[in-house]
């Protein structure tokens, strides 16, 4: 079961984790990732973060990433939630849960989904700092993290 949510409202990671497991006792493992807004980035204190996205394409991209993970591993549930709009330091921004019968599939799927989300889902961050606002630049290390899954596919 795949669930994708894109919303401005805050969320409770604990509640989401419980809801992923609820109603399916075949699930033996739920691996969750929660990303938070940091108050510091590249030598600047961050006062706030604005998340722009591409409505329509965003949801489709996340669904496709969840489907791709489900094809690679025997998953029993995937939940992806990403916030958009104005966020403050300390707030949760993204939640990914992968559920499976055993832990290894869930660990791998959760990491895969985050790596793909960071490089293939149309979100853009704009940081508000003491010296003004600036668009966050994409990092080559994120591209490399996503590329390792392509290597996996080739070697298997």
């Amino acid at each position, binding site marked *: 079961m795949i669930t994708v949510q894109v919303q401005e409202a805050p969320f409770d990671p604990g509640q989401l984790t419980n809801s992923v497991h609820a109603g399916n006792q075949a699930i033996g493992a739920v691996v969750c990732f929660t*990303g938070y807004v940091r108050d510091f980035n590249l030598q600047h204190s961050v006062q706030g973060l604005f998340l722009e996205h591409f409505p*329509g*394409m965003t949801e*489709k*991209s996340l669904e496709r990433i969840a489907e791709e993970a489900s094809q690679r591993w025997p998953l029993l549930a995937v939940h992806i939630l*990403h916030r958009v709009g104005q966020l403050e330091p300390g707030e949760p921004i993204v939640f990914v849960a992968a559920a499976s019968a055993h832990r290894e599939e869930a660990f791998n799927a959760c990491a895969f989904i985050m790596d793909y989300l*960071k490089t*293939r889902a*149309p979100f*853009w961050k704009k940081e508000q700092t003491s010296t003004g606002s600036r668009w966050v630049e994409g990092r080559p290390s994120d591209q490399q993290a996503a590329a390792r899954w392509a290597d996996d596919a080739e070697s298997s």
Partner: protein
Amino acid sequence: MITVLFFARYKEELQTDKLQLDWQEGWQSLEDVRAHLIQRGTPWTTLEDPSLMCARNQEMCSLDTAVRAGDEVAFFPMVTGG
């Protein structure tokens, strides 16, 4: 006619988020549409960004992807979600 969307930094620099362009004879790929816009000069030269990403009809694709009249094309900077 095709629709071209811009996001984030490009949207700000170009001061627009959406264009409707008349279909040009000879257009084959998204690269042709990009080159057409860059030809307009500043500020459109921002699309020369080597890490530019693009989508055709809301699917991420490469610049050599074929484009057709009626398509919705999007150009945007490297994504930074998560």
